[in-house]
């Protein structure tokens, strides 16, 4: 692992009496694809939500490129450089694919009410740049042909791609993907795998939650395993697969 991009230190989160995350620490290196796996209910999505500011952690801190993140403020986390997608796709259903990506440019543009109403030269130039960038990103994920379709009318695989394009529009240093292959068939998953590998070669660090073990093992440089809110392993995919604690978490303990 080279330079550290993201470091989470001792993240804990309780919901009432339920302990969702207990003292989870991990570091993600720049340019890595980092996998986060674990049985259902292990706390993977909770960790995502803490990391991206949707939940506030009960304890712990996160730094991105050495700077502390203001957890609990999603828009500031995005501004700092973490973008995410959702396990159950959350697009702006009644906006076009292009408009969805344009919304993603929010933090990278600045026109306010006055600029919009007067349509000043700067605003018009910015607007044109937003449209151009959105088209570029749609091309990148391979759905520019459907730019003017409503997001709700896109096929499932394209909706996943659109969500990634929208996240990329914020120019993230770290892209957090929450089960991007959920519900995809084999060929869609293969295409997604290519897309993710391409993202990495373009310099984007990726945090990946995934149930598809083949996808995780094939793509990730390192994998962390959560079980009942605790990190029980962190290693290369091969080592994790052999780890007895991981096997126990997934398959249950040895039969007495």
């Amino acid at each position, binding site marked *: 692992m080279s330079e550290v991009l993201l470091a989470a230190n001792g993240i804990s989160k309780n919901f009432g009496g339920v302990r969702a995350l207990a003292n989870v620490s991990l570091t993600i290196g720049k340019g890595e694809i980092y996998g986060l796996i674990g049985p259902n209910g292990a706390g993977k999505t909770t960790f995502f939500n803490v990391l991206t*500011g*949707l939940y506030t952690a009960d304890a712990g801190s996160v730094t991105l490129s050495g700077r502390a993140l203001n957890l609990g403020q999603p828009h500031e986390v995005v501004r700092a450089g973490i973008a*995410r997608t959702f396990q159950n796709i959350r697009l*702006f259903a*009644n906006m076009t694919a292009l*408009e969805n990506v344009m919304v993603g*440019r929010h933090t990278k543009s600045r026109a306010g*009410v006055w600029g919009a109403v007067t349509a000043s030269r700067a*605003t018009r130039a910015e607007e044109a740049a937003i449209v151009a960038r959105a088209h570029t990103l749609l091309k990148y994920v391979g759905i520019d042909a459907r730019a003017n379709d409503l997001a709700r009318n896109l096929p499932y695989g394209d909706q996943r791609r659109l969500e990634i394009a929208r996240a990329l529009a914020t120019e993230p240093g770290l892209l957090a993907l929450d089960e991007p292959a959920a519900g995809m068939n084999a060929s869609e998953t293969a295409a997604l795998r290519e897309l993710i590998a391409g993202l990495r070669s373009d310099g984007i660090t990726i945090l990946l939650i995934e149930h598809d073990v083949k996808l995780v093992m094939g793509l990730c440089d390192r994998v962390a395993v959560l079980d009942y809110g605790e990190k029980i392993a962190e290693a290369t995919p091969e080592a994790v697969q052999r780890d007895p604690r991981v096997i126990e978490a997934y398959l249950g303990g040895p039969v007495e």
Partner: protein
Amino acid sequence: MKPLANLLPHPLPPAAAYGGAALAALALAAVPFVLGMNFGNSWVRIVDFALLYAMLALGLNIVVGFAGLLDLGYIAFYAVGAYLYALLASPQFGLHWPLWAILPLGATCAAAFGVLLGAPTLRLRGDYLAIVTLGFGEIIRIFLNNLNAPVNITNGPQGIANIDSMSVAGHALEKPLVVFGFPIPSLYLFYYLFLALAVLTMFICIRLEDSRIGRAWVAIREDEIAAKACGINTRNIKLLAFAMGASFGGVAGGLFAGFQQFVSPESFGLLESIMVLCMVVLGGMGHIPGVVLGALLLAILPEALRYAARPAQMWLFGRMLLDPEALRMLLFGGALIAVMLFRPAGLWPSAVRRREFAASGNGT
């Protein structure tokens, strides 16, 4: 004239756009003369009010149509604008501020009230938000009703009378303006002022809709969590929606006070809020031309029914069976139900919304 060209769905060649804009301007300028000469000046008055309602509906459309925040107390901002004008330009405090000073102040003041309403309701949506905003609207009305003691500010239920008329460029609009020896009646002058401001409001709305801010509003309406994940500061953007919507209400309120030269808390009841909401929903939520259409129709139709009820009954039955006032509300309610049944997306919805309703109608 670029803005008017932007109103059209397809870009037109400049000559056609200019020609169309000139024709539209001419037609709009002729409206009071045509109405006044054929149907009497009371109709010009009705159209004047319809333009105020158009401004209100456009303002509410920002909050309800764009940002998707159901606001049942919107008329409170109209009240704020109206009372501000009444207090600053009447014998009540002996102040006589000019229109150009009061209107921006009214917009600012209403915007501040918009933020005041928005701030505590940021976490609420849908029915919960509706209930809180409804309460807010009533609080403002009740305040206006009771702020006559211990210090008399609003004159209580009696309202404020003898408000100064508005003057534009040194001419008081309550007097006819003589142009080349031809007098233009006062009601026509109000029409032109209101028309100008309604068109300006519409222009601002159109520019906002297709901007970074407008997209952020719609994103919040569509999915607030996803909007946050796109880096939108939903708190500020929602407050901005409340403030922008309220400021239009404040301007319309100021115009109302200067036009009527009398304000009382009665004019700002819940029914008025619901009326403006009906205009937005009936016309086509989120679609600016639809909202204007809804406002004009709902402001004019009830009056038309009032005028038509008597002759229609005399012709049908030879005598008056029902009081026109009662019949008017019956027909009005019937019309609302019919529109919601047969055109649930509104009379003139945006293309997107029409598709949305068509899709949900198919059970998808």
